[in-house]
């Protein structure tokens, strides 16, 4: 494969190809420079909605009949990083105030964030609870395979606070980059216990173990338009979540999210 012979090797004329390569680089660099500003929408009647991964099912239901909507699902922190890097989107929905704050601070989001729901963490196990988990303190048991969200994503930050306050040092075996990845490993039975959102435990049909220490720890879901003056079709998508009795509000309720009137742990973005 790599054993080529060097017989008859002669260099091709040099200038033209180098010019081509340089021209390509210049064009590409200019292109990158022009599209570098953030805070743009997509246009053309299409609406790109970036949503936290814990909203996967809700987003699917709400936009089932809106074909012009393209959902992008990832961890809130990933979405905010993508926006900062110039990803095109019209609406951002994050799973806590801190990530929305960051998007506002970085100038990726120009619209006013609105709190649409809250969620709480639960102690979840596979349906048959193979590790015999009975309470939050079992997360420090070395003989169990314990999973948490990575501290970089909202569910990991919330879990860290809750465990800190409860004085429990978890013996984690993996720090998953999204709550969905953690929930699916629990439902596959590869992990014995983990802290996921109540709604994800429900969606993945996990068993939950009573853990009163978690009840006071809520995270807030915020929606905001990327542009300061959203197009009508973008505003319609936001209304889907913010208006009383909207399809979004109904879906959030159906999947077990809490109402926005409960005060979230994270301060609302100013």
């Amino acid at each position, binding site marked *: 494969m790599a054993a080529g012979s060097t017989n008859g090797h002669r260099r091709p004329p040099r200038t033209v190809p180098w010019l081509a390569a340089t021209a390509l680089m210049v064009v590409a660099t200019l292109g990158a420079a022009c599209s570098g500003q953030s805070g743009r929408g997509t246009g053309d009647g299409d609406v790109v909605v970036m949503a936290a991964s814990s909203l996967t099912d809700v987003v699917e239901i709400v936009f089932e009949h809106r074909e012009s909507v393209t959902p992008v699902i990832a961890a809130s922190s990933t979405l905010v*990083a993508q926006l900062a890097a110039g990803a095109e989107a019209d609406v951002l929905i994050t799973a806590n105030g801190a990530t929305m704050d960051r998007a506002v601070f970085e100038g990726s989001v120009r619209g006013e964030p609105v709190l649409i729901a809250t969620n709480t963490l639960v102690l979840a196990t596979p349906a048959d609870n193979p590790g015999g988990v009975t309470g939050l303190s079992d997360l420090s048991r070395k003989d169990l395979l314990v999973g948490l969200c990575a501290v970089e994503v909202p569910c990991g930050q919330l879990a860290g606070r809750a465990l800190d306050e409860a004085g429990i040092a978890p013996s984690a075996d993996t720090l998953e980059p999204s709550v969905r990845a953690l929930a699916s490993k629990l439902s*596959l*039975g*590869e*992990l014995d216990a983990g802290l996921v959102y109540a709604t994800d435990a429900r969606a993945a049909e996990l068993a939950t173990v009573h853990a009163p220490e978690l009840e006071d720890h809520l995270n807030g879901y915020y929606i905001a338009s990327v542009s300061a003056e959203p197009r009508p079709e973008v505003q319609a998508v936001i209304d889907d979540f913010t208006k009383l009795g909207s399809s979004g509000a109904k879906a959030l309720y159906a999947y077990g999210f809490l109402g926005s009137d409960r005060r979230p742990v994270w301060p609302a973005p100013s």
Partner: protein
Amino acid sequence: MAGAIMSNRLPAAVTWVGFVALGLLVLPIVGLLQRAPWSSLPSILGESEVLEALRVSLIVSLAATAACIVLGLPLAFVLARRRLRFPRIVRAVVMLPMVLPPVVAGTALLFALGRRGLVGQWLDSWFGVSLPFTTAGSVVAAAFVALPFFVVTVEAALRQAGDDLDEAAATLGAGAWATLAHVTLPTIRPALAAGTALAWARALGEFGATLTFAGNFPGRTRTLPLETYLALERNPEAAVAISLVLMAVALAVLVTLRDRWMPR
């Protein structure tokens, strides 16, 4: 590789497009270099998390490469020298991990070797061995995606070399093992080096399968690519710095290999 081509018979357009392709490969690297936080590089790379990820990465990628050689060499011989029943299908199966999205590869590994997997449940109940969320699991994931690169390279070389020399050695009274060690392997030495380098590079950069199958825990399964991915959300500068290290390590090894073991 390109040295054998008679350039005076090469149409200009081919040269052109070739260099455009080279630009496509080089451009992202240039992009990375111009965003690199050169002044804070030492402090970022000196962070204990980065060093820990580098250690895990080296252990995992080297162990995976060793596994690729030990398992891949016999497989390459079987593919090149044995009369197989469905050679095309077997060869396609060997190459599958190259096209499988790594996350799917990781999930497939969970279904097979996870604690509740097809084989994994027996490993767990008979030997108490559970691969997910361990360094060994990371090695398995990396070896799974890297193996085809080694096998395909070595198999091609074995076919090209043919078995005339082997037969000559046998005629002269050499045993099967002696022929293998003194005739066949030295003949395909460049391909062995190339295959090893490719497999190692693939294992070093492996992300999706490792994350899905082995999870992410510092000092155990968090390799440099995982560290980079998480750092991208926390501190993009650190992510760029770590990527630079990955590239530098890979480039250094590939260039060294090429100079030492591959004829130019």
